[in-house]
């Protein structure tokens, strides 16, 4: 799974937009959308919101959590706690990136939000690295981490699995090596 796929999944999230056109309900496989009334907020998936935004057919209303005060609170919480705190949204990173890249004019204090989300992301990734480190150094067989988002898991998965595999190989070869003395082959 690569980040684009995660982003694709994030595009299913619902945001509110204010359309500037009028359209009846549209019926899609994923569910019915609309009706679109000019000036009236309506909930649509992110992919549609971005599409409409790019065509200048709507204004995007930022999700509730995308607010400087709330994010500051989350950041402080994240820094204070040792474990992972619940993220503001399961797709917070992806949504921030998508919305701020395409609709920064509709989001008040976009720059501050970008910084805050980056801060939160960095804090969480640092925690993740730390726990991966202790996981490996203590040679645990399993560990449980709560409140991780898909994107976070995804960033660390390939590396962690790869290195664990590698270490497993090394160790499994070490063992016979110590018993049979063939270790130095590797």
């Amino acid at each position, binding site marked *: 799974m690569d980040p684009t796929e995660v982003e694709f999944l994030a595009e299913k999230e619902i945001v*509110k937009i*204010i359309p*500037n*056109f*009028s*359209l*009846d309900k549209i*019926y*899609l*496989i994923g569910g*019915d959308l609309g*009706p679109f*009334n*000019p*000036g*009236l*907020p309506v909930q649509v998936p992110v992919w549609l919101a971005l599409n409409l935004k790019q065509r*200048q*057919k709507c*204004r995007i*209303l930022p999700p509730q959590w995308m607010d400087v005060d709330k994010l500051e609170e989350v950041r402080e919480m994240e820094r204070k706690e040792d474990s992972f705190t619940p993220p503001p949204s399961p797709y917070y990173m992806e949504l921030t990136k998508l919305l701020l890249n395409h609709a920064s004019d509709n989001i*008040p204090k976009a720059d501050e939000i970008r910084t805050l989300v980056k801060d939160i992301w960095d804090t969480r990734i640092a925690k993740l690295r730390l726990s991966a480190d202790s996981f490996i150094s203590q040679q645990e067989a399993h560990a449980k981490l709560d409140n991780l988002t898909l994107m976070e898991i995804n960033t660390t998965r390939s590396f962690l699995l790869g290195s664990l595999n590698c270490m497993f190989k090394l160790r499994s070869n070490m063992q016979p090596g110590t018993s049979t003395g063939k270790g130095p082959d590797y």
Partner: protein
Amino acid sequence: MPCERKPMRYGHSEGHTDVTFDDAGKFIVTCGSDGDVRIWESLDDDDPRSINVGEKAYSLALKKRKLVTAGSNNTVQIHTFPEGDPDGILTRFTTHATHVAFNHSGSRVAAGSSDFMVKVVEVADSSQQKTLRGHDAPVLSVTFDPKDEFLASASCDGSVVIWKIDEQTKVTSWPVLQKSNDVSTAKSLCRLGWQPKTAKLLAVPVGLKVHLYERDSWEHVSTLSDDMMTQPINVVAWSPCGQLLAAGSVGGFLTVWNAESKLCVERQKHEKGYTVCGLAWHPSGRQLAYTDTQGSLGLLDDLPTASSATKTPKAPAVKAANDYDDLFDEDDDRAMDEGLSDTHSPAKRPVAGGDDDDDDDLMPATGRVKNRSSFLDDENSLDTVSLALGQGKYGDDDDAGSTVAPPTGPSLPLRPAYEGPLPTLPQKPFQPGSTPAHLTHRFMTWNSVGVVRGYNDDQDNAVDVEFHDTAVHHAMHLTNALGHTLADLSQEAVLLACPATDELASKLQCLHFSSWDANKEWIVDLPAGEDVRALVLGQGWAAAATSARTLRLFTVGGVQKEIFSLPGHVVSMAAHGEQLLVVYHRGTGFDGDQALGVQLLQLGRRKRQVIHGEPLPLSCKAHLAWLGFTAEGTPCYVDSEGVVRMLNRSLGNTWTPVCNTRETCKGKSDHFWVVAVHENPQQLRCIPCKGSRYPPTLPRPAVAILPFKLPLCQTTTEKGQMEEQYWRSTLLQNHYSFLSSSGYEIDDEGQNQNQKEQQELLMKMFALSCKLEREFRCMELAELMTQSVVTLAVRYASRSRRMNLAQRLNELAMEKANQLQEEQEQEEEEVQEEEHHTPRSRYGQRESAGGHSSSRSHQAREEEPREEEEDESQETETLEADGESRKRLNPFARGAAASPEKPSPKPMSKEGRVNPFKVQGSGKSPSQSRVSNVLDSMTSVRRPAPLGGPSGKQSKGPVLKPLAPKPKTKMQSTLLQMATSKAANKKAQVNPEPAADRLKQPEVPPPDLPVEDSENQKPRTGFQLWLEENRKSILADSPDLQETDVIKAAMGSFRSLSAEDRLSWTERAKGQSGEAADLKKRKRVEEAGEGDESRVKADENIAKKKKSLDTTAKLSAFAFNKN
């Protein structure tokens, strides 16, 4: 408690004077510009003793038998008292002293001089002087702190300074006074007063008010004022008890306040209106001596003492204060502050309201405007202010009366004593959906079309127009050179107006962007002296209400049209299509209420007035906050209490409250700012404003949607809920009949949906009442039902073994059926007559000729292969044929094709659009799944054929046919149905509201599905069964058909049956239940769509035919003939 005002008497020659009492109160001592000090034993003393102290005496002070005077010879002298012997010179200045004062103990004298200095001198030893330097202009007055610690002085430089005497330093300084360059040119003498005994408060006359400053904190704690004070206050003096404060003004007003309650306890006017320049209390506190600039001496006797003064006026004041306190919001700091400091003085509140503005103009109107427009203002404070202003206004009247006829002693009323209703200040005109004009960034209007914003700051004076739907027009940015303050926006134009200025007349500017010529703008100047107060844009016209109480109509292109007078000043206007709604002041409201009147005019071809200036109901003490129409064209408005009311056209144009936005608010000071109301779907579109009444322009507020809720009783119970839903649905359905009566096409599907919902609710309520054994209530509910639902109710009742109820219901059903039949017969007669004159009679006649005429079947067969074409030509024909009553497209219908810019939507293509993803039956409300099977069947019955309702869509004929006919257009292609329901068909043709696009929907032939040949092969399919029964009629219709053609035709007809119909056939095919129904009955079934349902009806029909049968027999039919 009025005091006695003694007549004035001559004291000194013309000029400045001063007055004081001696310590014992035995003598009145005055000085004047003749340089004499006179010692009066009483006011009646005809031979006062005179002591000459110099050329002029400016001020005097008396304590412990020592008389200190400030004279024109630049000295402060001491004389013994009462002997009047010179006792030396206390101090000298470089110019004359202006004011002298003793301290409490009499040990020191302070003197202020025109040489900017203040000196404090020990009386016993004049060499011990302290000089206080710091004023930049002549000193007006000085006063000692009774505790001898501080000294206060006022100066022409505009400041009042507190000095620490011992350190000779400034403690604090307030630049509150008006600056002047000399004592003689100063507006006010500004004699300060320090509260004796407690020494807590320092009274400073500032303009028309007296500011009270608190000792030590030196904060301005409160303000005393009186509406009757029209000119600056010259002197203040504390009563010896320290509770009352007297003030004398330039205009000759004398006012006594109670400093604690801040109530004015006494009010007198100088008999000639001369300026009061000296004021002194008798040590007993019962008398007040005063002198004027003409040298006269006066006395007020029998003044209320502090204790009595607090008692009498307190009762009403406390009561009022409580009232106001209740009104104030806890979280509104400003209101709270005002409440604390001012609530005890209703008479002076308007002044307090004006405090913030630093505005001496105390016209009630200005105060009101300021308060009304303050951005974070709370409505409650607004109300109290308006109330208080009303009181103020009353006071002014009172004042006017007293100046005309000099008051005679006790007859002068004390203002706080007035307890009657007080007039409310009329509310200012406003544009619906606008924020106050004083804001630099404001919404000039926000409506369903778009937003007009006004910017008026340093860089920019501009108007931004933005459309919700960019398809209407692109956004516009206009420079606001004319200073427009009013705006309205429609699909066609932007209308702006500015008030008149000194040079320029009030202008009306219209940007007619939908115009097809090159000139998209016009401006109209109003006649001089006339200001635009409110304006509105309708469809193709504009209206402006002016300050001359006229209403001017224009076309949107700028042609002047009708002009008429309004009965009062306009408050607001709204328009929708051809309707114009005007709200104006009907009169003066009392006790915070507004007296508004409303007019509703129809400005179409048939101009008429629908509502003739009836009073507009508002909540208690509320004013109008929003006025408009629903998207469907029903007038509605919102008052400041957040109650939304809507016109109920079916109840004699009454106003029904449909929603209270304040109930949905989280906080007390939160409001909803309504921008639009929709009836279908039921939406109240508004902007939530946290902690304010109006939304800010940035960040752009988002619209929220509130539901309607009628304030019926017990809406928590199931019964109440259903009642509320029923009546809400009924109320919000009124617009259908209005729209159709005014010639617009209506959304039939929506209407049917509504009616269905209502009938369902009735049925549910019926079932509920049945369960509760309330049979009488059941009957009442049944009265509201349509005939077909009553038959269901009969079934329900008979099933639940309520024979009595069933019998009564049955009678009711018969009655309704008869009624219906009569109506329809009448209609039909009319219709038949009409038909001969309309081009459409081609069909009508042919069909009324009845039978299966070969000509018709021939034509029908011809048409068959080109069904689609026929449909279309039918469509066009319908449009053309409608001749006299051509349907106008409803420009307010929602949806993609709703824009009036291009009013040619293709209903066919829109409705007929095949949606492969559309969930079947999505139109059904989820609640249906929960209702009993009786209701289920009702739903399915009504789906193919919506209930007729009052519009008389029921099919005619002697039999009970609760089902509406299929629309004619379809009949043409479905031969069979044509044959079976000719009468119905004809009815549909002449139906005044074809609106075929909606009704047609369920019947549009399924898109080119491959013919299921397998169906023919199977031994028993629903189709075969159906064909068997209908072959005869098909053949009868077209006898010369080949067998294959017959099948084809039949197939077409069968397919055009609704899904339910087909299903029932299929089911029957499976079950092969021995239906012994005859063909005629079967046809009815076909329409009814469900076997058992129609059987009940058939039974009923039979029962009806055999009227000789007794009721028990009929009932038994109900009870035991069920499936």
